[in-house]
């Protein structure tokens, strides 16, 4: 197989996004600590919402909304950090 290794790596990341609806819905370590110690209400509402709770707005099916949000974030981060690293590379080559 001659596929470039990073295409395989990115595919694995996208696959994780696709299976992300199976993630545990339990609060994470910090959220749990905040709930148990009654300071979870101190969390302020975000000033704006884009894709809150990893659920793409306007999609009724919860799993689908999560998958779309996950794929969006995965591709966004690949593109953003690939671009950033390219800029850093050209900086010393220029």
């Amino acid at each position, binding site marked *: 197989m001659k596929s*470039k*290794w*990073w295409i395989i*790596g*990115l595919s*694995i*990341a*996208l696959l*994780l*996004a696709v*299976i*992300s609806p*199976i*993630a*545990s*819905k*339990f*609060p*994470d*370590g*910090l959220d*749990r*600590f*905040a709930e*148990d*110690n009654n*300071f979870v209400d*101190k*969390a*302020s509402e*975000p*000033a704006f*919402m*884009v*894709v*809150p*709770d*990893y659920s793409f707005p306007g999609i009724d099916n919860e799993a689908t909304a*999560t998958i779309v*949000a*996950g794929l*969006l*974030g*995965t*591709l*966004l*981060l*690949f*593109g*953003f*950090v*690939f671009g*950033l*690293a*390219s800029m*850093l*590379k050209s*900086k*010393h080559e220029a």
Partner: protein
Amino acid sequence: MHIPDGFLSAPVAVATGVVAVAAIAVAVKQTNKKMGEKQVPMMGVLAAFIFAAQMLNFPVAGGTSGHFIGAALAAILLGPWATVLILSSVLVVQSLVFQDGGLLALGANITNMGLIAGFSSYYIYKGLDALSKHNKAGTLVGAGIGAWFGVVLASLACAAELSISGTSPWAIAVPAMGGVHILIGVGEGLITVAVLSLIMATRADLLKLQVA
């Protein structure tokens, strides 16, 4: 371990913000010298993988979950300064687009999950790898233990920030955060070792891309 806005006092948010901005500035300087043809896609793939893997919370004891952070994996593959850039990018996108982690708490989240988790896991891994004379099993054990420490130390930093902010007393925050992350860190270690094993078995040359 993403701190939302409202948990940190202004001084803690500003202080950690200054630390994060300084770390990113140093990271840019440190990484640009060795950034090459193969490092660019590795940076992108790691950011993508870490974002996606962070969505996959796994259950730990008592109705609590944890998730992969990825700082150890990034640090082992590309070095701790590159890790600061990767984790900062992930945390900025999570905060701006997904409202996971507060905007004002970004400095603290970058300090904990990028800087502290990245550097601590990297140097513990380096030390154990050298002690094992770089044999494969020793490298993997070092990676797993380094990853575990990275998560636990990041959680203790988070507990310290919450306690200095007056959100939760020190005597409660440290054992509570440390205790649950002792378990979550095991997940981090296992995932880190699994990914490194896969890379060792398929493309061992990709283990030699450290930039800084």
